[in-house]
């Protein structure tokens, strides 16, 4: 992907010999792996010619290569402003967002790319992957299904769609794709999908076995450590699970679930300062996510920051009025802030929600 941009450098007839040499030198350095040298050359050139969008794009690629994603995003955004329809720029911006865990921003860009270039398979798969990371399984299915025939032999594609179907409880359809992967031999993808199916069916011990096999076959398979960790969380405990979540983060530092699970475990252990960075990374991946925001609010409450907790919890219950745990915590926050009327109002909501949940229990009708 990044390599393609070396070819995008246009002829620089209008540029004086010296700047041309500067650019040629920077490109040569980039090709040779001297990214810092390339960045220096591109920046020097852009001082004199800020309108040179392709060179700015090259600068973005070099910055990405250096892991300076935020700077790359800045350059890509300027370039896109200059040339909104330049091919590949938006996809590269999306990739930079993706790499920094800003999955929501990446998705916004990819939706536009997908709309403008529906045949761009890379953008389609990446968009589906973003949706999956945000837990939007139905969107994964919506984006991938039209392409299914075209990619029927692409195991990565099949795996992504199959996983989304299973997670969306469309197990029988998902199973067809699992079988397709299984026909291709004993693969990590197949065991991961089987493990996912078993997790969905609450067969945690079975899931644990499948996922252990998936990890053994391909420890770099995206998401494999998270699912294995979740199975271990139920069947073993947080220590073993946390090891797996950390393995996932070694591959993908912005994995939402791994960050959330580690953060929640640390919060439960009252290690609040250690929990916060994980939760903040999870929130960066899924901006506005209620589960993460609740964890952070609960930490604030435990740390005695009742007003900070109140603000977040008020926002959470506004968005999700039946979030009982948030009402519990909000009630406590109000009482700590010496606002008993509000505290009692929230307490009544907790009682009402609890009674409604109780009324749905099957044993209520037993006579």
């Amino acid at each position, binding site marked *: 992907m990044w390599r393609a941009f070396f070819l995008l450098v246009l002829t620089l007839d209008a540029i004086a010999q010296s700047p041309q040499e500067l650019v040629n030198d920077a490109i040569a350095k980039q090709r040779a792996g001297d990214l810092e040298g390339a960045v220096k050359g591109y920046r020097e050139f852009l001082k004199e010619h800020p309108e040179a969008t392709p060179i700015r794009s090259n600068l973005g690629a070099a910055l990405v290569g250096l892991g300076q994603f935020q700077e790359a995003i800045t350059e890509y955004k300027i370039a896109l402003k200059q040339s909104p329809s330049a091919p590949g720029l938006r996809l590269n911006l999306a990739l930079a967002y993706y790499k920094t865990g800003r999955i929501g921003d990446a998705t916004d860009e990819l939706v536009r790319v997908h709309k403008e270039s529906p045949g761009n398979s890379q953008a389609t798969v990446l968009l589906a992957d973003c949706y999956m990371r945000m837990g939007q399984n139905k969107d994964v299915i919506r984006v991938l299904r039209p392409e299914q025939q075209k990619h029927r032999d692409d195991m990565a594609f099949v795996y992504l769609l199959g996983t989304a179907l299973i997670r969306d409880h469309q197990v029988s359809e998902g199973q067809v794709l699992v079988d397709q992967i299984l026909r291709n031999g004993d693969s990590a993808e197949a065991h991961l999908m089987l493990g996912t199916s078993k997790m969905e069916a609450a067969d945690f011990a079975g899931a644990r076995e499948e996922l252990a096999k998936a990890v053994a076959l391909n420890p770099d398979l995206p998401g494999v450590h998270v699912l294995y960790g979740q199975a271990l969380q139920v069947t073993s405990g947080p220590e073993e699970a946390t090891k797996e979540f950390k393995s996932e983060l070694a591959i993908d530092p912005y994995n939402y679930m791994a960050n959330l699970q580690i953060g929640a475990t640390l919060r439960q252990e009252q290690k609040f300062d250690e929990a916060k960075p994980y939760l903040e990374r999870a929130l960066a991946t899924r901006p506005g996510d209620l589960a993460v925001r609740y964890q952070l609010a609960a930490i604030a409450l435990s740390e005695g920051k009742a007003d900070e907790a109140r603000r977040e919890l008020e926002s959470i219950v506004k968005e999700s009025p039946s979030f009982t745990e948030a009402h*519990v915590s909000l009630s406590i926050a109000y009482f700590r802030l010496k606002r008993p009327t509000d505290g009692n109002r929230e307490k009544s909501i*907790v009682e009402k929600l609890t009674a409604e949940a*109780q009324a749905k*229990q099957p044993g209520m009708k*037993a*006579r």
Partner: protein
Amino acid sequence: MKISRREWLRLAAAFGATRFWGQQAGDVQRAPLFVEVPASQSGINWVHDNAMSPEHYLPETLGPGCAFLDFDNDGWMDIFLVNSGPCDFWKPAKPVRNALYKNNRDGTFTDVTEKAGVSGAAFGMGIAVGDYDNDGWPDIFVTAYGKCTLYRNNHDGTFTDVTEKAGVATPGWTTSAVWFDYDNDGRLDLFVCSFVDYSGEHKFECGDNKIGKKYYCIPRVFRPTASFLYHNNGDGTFTEVSKGTDIAKALGKGLGVVATDINNDGRMDLFVANDTVQNFLFVNRGPGANGKWKWEEIALQAGVGFSESGQARSGMGVDATDLNSSGWQDLFVANVDHEMFSVYQNNQDETFRDVAQANEVAQATRLLSGWGLKYFDYDNDGSVDLILANGHPDDMIDGYSMQVKYKEPLLLFHQGNDRKLHNVSGQAGPAFQKFLPARGLAVGDFDNDGALDVLIGNNGGPPLLLKNQAAKAENWLGLKLEGVQSNRDGVGARIIWTAGGRKHQRLKNNGGSYLSSHDPREVLGIGSVPKIDEVEIHWPAPSKQIDKITALPINRYVRVVEGKGILGERKGD
């Protein structure tokens, strides 16, 4: 089976238990803290019948409770064990009965159940012992799925069922109960926990589990119920007084209750553990303007109703004590596996915070389900320790969980000099390496040596009696409180004692644990300090008498009568 010292050392080595708690010098191997007293030695051959059936009716898995009590007032703790019995889903093929064992004062017991008339005829659950008629003889309330029973002590080794006459025939499924004087009129009142609505001819079933068998429903599926508060009228009868109060409004699934005073206002409050719904903390606000007693349920705002994640847990056993010598009562609640148990520290403003993580309790209990428990000073060093009895309610859990087991080990925690509870189960003795379906737990000194022993009721099995060997080298004084104007059992009295320049205090709470009742005497441990300088007894209202006692004996039990001081003593055996 009695374990010899040699066998213990071998077992201890096998379990890596070669170190004692705390910072003991070197790797000296010592005797276990507690040793099992086998049935062959104690004579306690009774076995709990849990009535387990293929249908898996929920009451089968909840019992039994147990108690230490001195029913014949001879100064030696006797034992009561609650059993199941006939009910709407079970007709026993052979007679099933409770058991009352008289202490023979030599480490053995004699079954006197039939003579005492306390066999029971219902599906028994728990026991609460208290002298409700202030006659100096302990009476017994047995809870049940079905008919609960109040046995009045006849002073001659027998009891009379006075349930109906007394007006405490409580409907439904009762579990733990506690005697306490909520209105400070000098008479013990009665609070009775009610579990779920399990009525109806056809019991609801939750289908088959993963191994194709019927299993015990999680109580979440059943309708919650309100608990009951009975006021003692002073004439042998009671009046239910919970109607119209928060006690009646709060629909729960009560399993454990402790009576304590969380705000030091001189009125006893109630902490109730509920299964799958929030716990309740009923604060006693005294008489209202309309003359009706006011109870305020404040568990949510107090921080003891839900987990730190705002979720209701499966509360079972409870207790209260002044864990950190702050002068304020802290609370404890045991839950099921993966919920962890809570050590609630009193913030002295009617709120609490869970300090289980800092006390080694959270991690130790992550995979366990806790029932009977007790805060007590097992080694008489003057600091409160903790014992927990555990067991999963699902008898088939081993079949589909990789870590959680049906039978679970006991846990023992010792409070160190850092004021934290440390898990010393690995050093407590072979009994703590056993896996048990434990439910009820009572603490009491059955051999009058000043070291509090432990009795555990096992579901579908024989009870476990543990003799305490941990306090042999330490000094102590045992108090049998006798109220005159205040209730005879002295429930609600505050005991303050000074020894070696250190001041201690204890509130005489009542209830706690699960389905069980403890030795009513208070043992004051003072470690290696040779004497207690002074004891103050702050009797509860109506007298609010303060008795200061000096020239105290050591290592023996004394009878302390309100307003009169020590009126008798018994040397420690």
